[in-house]
């Protein structure tokens, strides 16, 4: 197999003057356990690990390893079940992508259907959806690029706000809630979600990182909420495409943010999933809606999941925006 050579060579790109202490992805214990489980069931996903390591090196590997260590520890049953969930989540969305490449439309689904099939379905949420999203933050190139963008473009701006109050709307796994709490020691985060399972997962995440004292959760549909207290920072990652009317939702987010506050908003484009309803065909459509809801865009990144294989292939894309009001 030439895979071993590939990632050593890839690593050398980042650290070519330190050949004697070259690390390999296998040196990261928790990544390695996850990789072994995933590859025993889904061997064709092996390249994903190696590509990410070749591209992003030890920064990526140590952050991912730490994430797995804190969230799963040495509980192999949980890692194994997350590995199965991630594999199924990817197969699900890749299969829908092939169909989407032909129809250029998402399968017709109402918000109520997505809610009952996905958000209110504990087995689906804990078995497949939440582990899938959590692991994708590291194994999907465009998701990891989004995290690096957040770190570079958003975090330094928030660091200037003292004791920031942050609302994470559509917390999902709690991945970004935890990132705020971890990076901004005086921050408080409130997580909003209509799924008790997403809130449960986020509570577990925050507890394992030992941040529970600075976190609160609120259950409910954000579109029906009367939020009076405004926050300093609003976060909504990959929620817009789940809604029938994202502009109403964006107006809601805007009303939850104080004037001069900051926001981090992203959306998936041309990316069919079991619960994606609103089809964005390009990043400009997302930007336009964000501006319609009275936000000003400060910075943005638009990233494809992978290079198209053939001309005309449509590739899932992520657009993320740092905004202010």
């Amino acid at each position, binding site marked *: 197999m030439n895979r071993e050579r590939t990632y050593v060579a890839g690593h050398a790109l980042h650290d070519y003057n330190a050949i004697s202490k070259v690390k390999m992805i296998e040196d990261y214990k928790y990544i390695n356990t996850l990789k072994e489980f995933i590859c025993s*069931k889904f061997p064709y996903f092996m390249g994903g690990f190696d590509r990410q390591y070749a591209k992003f090196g030890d920064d990526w590997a140590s952050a991912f390893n730490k994430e797995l260590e804190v969230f799963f520890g040495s509980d192999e049953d949980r890692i194994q079940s997350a590995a199965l969930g991630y594999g199924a989540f990817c197969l699900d969305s890749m299969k829908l992508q092939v169909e989407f490449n032909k129809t250029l439309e998402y399968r017709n689904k109402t918000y109520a259907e997505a809610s009952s099939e996905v958000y209110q379905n504990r087995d689906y949420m804990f078995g497949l959806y939440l582990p899938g999203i959590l692991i994708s933050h590291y194994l999907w190139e465009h998701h990891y690029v989004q995290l690096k963008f957040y770190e570079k473009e958003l975090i330094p701006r928030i660091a200037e706000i003292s004791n920031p109050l942050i609302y994470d709307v559509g917390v999902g796994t709690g991945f970004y809630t935890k990132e705020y709490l971890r990076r901004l020691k005086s921050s408080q985060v409130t997580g909003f979600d209509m799924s008790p399972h997403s809130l449960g997962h986020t509570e577990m995440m925050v507890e394992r990182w030992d941040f529970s004292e600075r976190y609160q959760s609120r259950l409910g549909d954000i579109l029906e909420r009367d939020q009076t207290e405004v926050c300093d920072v609003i976060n909504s990652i990959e929620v817009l495409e789940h809604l029938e009317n994202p502009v109403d939702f964006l107006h809601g987010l805007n009303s939850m943010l104080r004037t001069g506050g900051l926001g981090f908003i992203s959306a998936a484009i041309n990316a069919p999933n079991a619960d994606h309803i609103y089809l964005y065909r390009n990043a400009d459509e997302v930007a336009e809606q964000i501006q319609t809801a009275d936000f000003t865009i400060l910075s943005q990144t638009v990233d494809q999941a992978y290079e198209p294989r053939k001309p005309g292939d449509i590739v899932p894309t992520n657009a993320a925006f740092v905004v202010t009001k």
Partner: protein
Amino acid sequence: MSIIEELQPIFRSVFEDTGLIVTREMSANDVENWDSLNHITLIVEIELHTGLTLTTEDLMNLANVGDFIDMLESKGFIPNGAG
């Protein structure tokens, strides 16, 4: 004709290897181009060929070609010229 013989041309075309000899033991580790995108293409081509719809559950435990063939058989696929 066995299922493997019948499906071999699909494997050869998806993985762009005209001399590929498909065996039950073969897995993604043994074929240069067998990555996740080609895996999905393979599945869609096999669905078209067999007329079966393969669900995520069907696809979850396929560590090698043998598992794939057993799954197709369990879903009632009979190769051309058999049965």
